[in-house]
Each structure stands twice: as structure tokens, then as C-alpha cells.
């Protein structure tokens, strides 16, 4: 009998790991696919922040693939994903998270990939009732239909709660060996993981996407408002993940490194931004996003001085570098914390 091939959407979390394993156990050849949207929590912040250096750095999707002995294809979808973020047909969740549109998009990309590479069906780790927006009984058929996957989309962890799919009807997989998980409880997943002998899996707190994060969403909304248009580039969304973001004026904000790792990461952006650095005292690197006149730069320097070791000094010397210009220095009094207005800190 011909060995069937399935492509599994692998996030790096437990559910997609289990879904792929369930199908592998039925003798199907499974390969993983993982989409990089630019908003993925996976990896980035750990790589940037020095204080996280002691933590093991691993890409969980790659780690899962290695545990399961399957290939993983990581696809850069940054450009195409913009339309999902900017124009979600099904709207946003609690923050700027377009979860249902995101799922439709990812499954549709997986369908495209499967057709191109001669794979028979697509599997996901979705569980009915697991997520309030994208994983509900009502949304499952929406994802199948709008992605173009139709009955080639199999959810092994909750398949028994859903209509039969083609892989089940055709006998490519045995429905009896699939599962009927539902709801937010993780107990069935943990039990199945133990059954498979898994002792380690990723447990991302707060999901796998920065768009579900309230503070990140505030910063993204601010970016759109300040620029007068809902657009972004990859550098914008990377920089929203690092530093303190302080907008003292509508036409500029400061991104101030919080520790050495962030400062070093931000150094890579010095040519693209006006930047400030304290020179009389140890202090952070700050990037200025927007436009600034001399008064604005004076204010920016006072704010940067506030976050340096000279915060209690009468004067702090700050080096200012405009784009493609020679740096110059000014002496400023660090701004008092009471003068940092409510609403400046994003």
C-alpha cells in the first residue's frame, strides 16, 4: 500500500507535537511546517536580552521536529502576513491578534505547500474549545473552507468530535485511533504525552504570538497612529519587542535599551535612527523614531539621562547623533520622574 504523506503545522507547543505523533503512529510519513510571521515569540526576545542568556535557547518547532524524527520546513511569510494583521476579515481578539484569520492563512499556506510537494493532507494540533477565538466548534469548518483545505484538513486531537475527513474515509488513517479532546483542560494532552513517553515540551506562557500581548499591541497601535497609516516593516516589529518605548511628543518616540543585550541589538539600528547615549555616566543607548528639532532633542537627552547612572546628578553629558551627521554633545539635567507624563510610557 502506498505510504501517505501529511504535512503538520508545527508551532513548537505540545498540541501540534502530539497531533504529528498520532499520525506518525499510523504509519503516515509526516513532515512539519512552521511559518515565521515576524510576530512569533519563539526565539527573539531570549536572543536579545542578556539576562536571559542563562536560559536554554532553542527553537521549539525545530526541537519538536527532532524529537519526532521528522523534517521541518520554516517558511518566511512576513510580507504576505501583513494583510492578515492589517485587514483581518474576522476581526481581532482581545488585542491586535487576528487569530482566526491567522489560522486560515497558515492552513492555506500549508495547502499550497502540500500541493507543490505532493503531500496528501494537512494536520493541525487544534482542539475544539482550546482557544476562545480560533479554536471553537463553529470556527473549525470556517478554517477548512476558507483555507481551501476542505476535507483534507485533519485535526487528530479532536477528530472524533468533527465530521469525517478524506484521510479517514479513504482509510489513510484509522479514525478509531484519533482523539476526542475538547475544552481548555490540558489533562488529556498531558496524559497522551506521557503515553508517548514525552517528558519535555514547550509551555509558552501567553501564547506564541506577540499580537496577543496587550502591551505589544499598544505599541503597535501607537506606531500606526504616529505614522498616520497602518503599515509596518520587519524592523518596526522587531524594535517593538525591545527597550522602553516613551513618546513625549506626537512626532517622536524614544526606544531606550533596558540592559546590555538590548543595547547591543539596538546598535545595529544606529545608522537608521537619530540616537543618543550618555557619555559622562554609564547609560543606555536610545533610538529616536520620528523627527526632532533642537528642543525635542534637549527633552530626549533629559529623558535618556534619567535612565542612566547619572539620574541623580545635576548634569549629564549626552552624545547626540543625527542620521549621517557628526555626533555632538550637550549637558542636560536628567528629567525628574514626576515630569514623565502619564501616557508617555507605552
Amino acid at each position: 500500500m502506498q505510504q501517505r504523506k501529511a504535512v503538520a503545522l508545527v508551532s513548537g507547543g505540545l498540541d501540534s507535537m502530539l497531533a504529528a505523533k498520532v499520525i506518525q503512529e499510523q504509519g503516515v510519513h509526516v513532515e512539519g511546517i512552521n511559518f515565521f510571521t515576524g510576530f512569533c515569540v519563539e526565539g527573539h526576545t531570549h536572543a536579545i536580552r542578556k539576562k536571559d542568556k542563562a536560559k536554554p535557547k532553542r527553537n521549539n518547532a525545530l526541537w519538536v521536529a527532532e524529537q519526532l524524527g521528522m523534517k521541518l520546513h520554516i517558511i518566511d511569510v512576513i510580507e504576505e502576513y501583513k494583510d492578515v494583521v492589517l485587514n483581518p476579515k474576522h476581526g481581532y481578539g482581545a488585542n491586535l491578534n487576528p487569530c482566526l484569520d491567522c489560522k486560515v492563512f497558515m492552513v492555506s499556506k500549508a495547502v499550497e505547500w502540500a500541493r507543490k510537494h505532493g503531500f496528501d493532507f494537512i494536520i493541525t494540533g487544534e482542539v475544539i474549545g482550546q482557544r476562545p477565538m480560533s479554536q471553537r466548534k463553529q470556527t473549525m469548518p470556517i478554517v477548512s473552507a476558507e483555507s481551501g483545505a476542505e476535507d483534507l484538513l485533519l485535526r487528530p486531537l479532536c477528530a472524533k468530535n468533527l465530521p469525517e475527513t478524506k484521510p479517514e474515509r479513504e482509510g489513510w488513517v484509522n479514525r478509531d485511533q484519533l482523539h476526542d479532546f475538547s475544552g481548555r483542560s490540558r489533562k488529556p494532552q498531558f496524559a497522551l504525552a506521557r503515553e508517548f513517553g514525552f517528558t519535555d515540551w514547550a509551555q509558552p506562557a501567553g501564547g506564541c504570538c506577540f499580537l496577543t500581548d496587550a502591551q505589544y499591541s499598544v505599541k503597535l497601535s501607537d506606531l500606526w497612529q504616529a505614522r498616520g497609516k497602518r503599515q509596518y516593516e520587519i524592523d518596526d516589529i522587531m524594535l517593538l519587542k525591545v527597550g522602553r518605548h516613551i513618546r513625549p511628543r506626537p512626532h517622536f518616540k524614544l526606544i531606550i535599551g533596558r540592559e546590555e543585550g538590548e543595547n547591543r541589538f539596538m546598535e545595529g539600528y544606529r545608522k537608521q535612527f537619530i540616537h543618543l547615549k550618555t557619555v559622562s555616566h554609564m547609560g543606555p543607548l536610545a533610538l529616536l523614531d520620528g523627527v526632532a528639532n533642537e528642543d525635542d532633542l534637549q527633552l530626549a537627552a533629559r529623558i535618556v539621562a534619567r535612565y542612566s547612572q547619572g539620574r541623580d546628578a545635576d548634569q549629564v553629558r549626552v552624545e547626540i547623533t543625527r542620521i549621517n551627521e557628526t555626533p555632538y554633545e550637550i549637558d542636560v539635567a536628567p528629567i525628574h520622574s514626576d515630569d514623565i507624563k502619564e501616557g508617555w510610557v507605552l
Partner: protein
Amino acid sequence: MSEIELDARNILCPLPVIRTQDKINSMAVNDILVVHCTDPGAIVDIPTWCRINGHEVLGIDEQDRDIAIRIKVCES
């Protein structure tokens, strides 16, 4: 057999892995790829990607922030 250098500096994982993957997919068996990167996460992620996709890491050279990962493209 050819040797190719890939500059993946100042980008964060998984982008160095994606760049490596895309480059290797266009190379021939026994070619050598040297990936230059600065994200410390790449030290784990690129070798993992190589293992699961059947390519061989010949060596990793770390000089301060700069990391060079030397990969032999294998049949996969």
C-alpha cells in the same frame, strides 16, 4: 564542489535558519556553506535544522559576537 558564504548577521532566529535552509535548498550535494551570524540562538538552531534535514555541521567558530557555522550539504 563549491564553497559559499552566507551573511546572516544582525538578524534573529529563526531568520538565520530560514536563510540557511533556503540557501542550502539551492546548493548541490557536497557543497559547503559557511553561515555568518550574530544571534547566539543560531548556535543551537542551525545545527538542529541540519540534523533533522540530514546535513553535516563541520564546525562552529565563535569570535566574540561573530559566529561562523560551516555546513556540508548532504543528500536528504
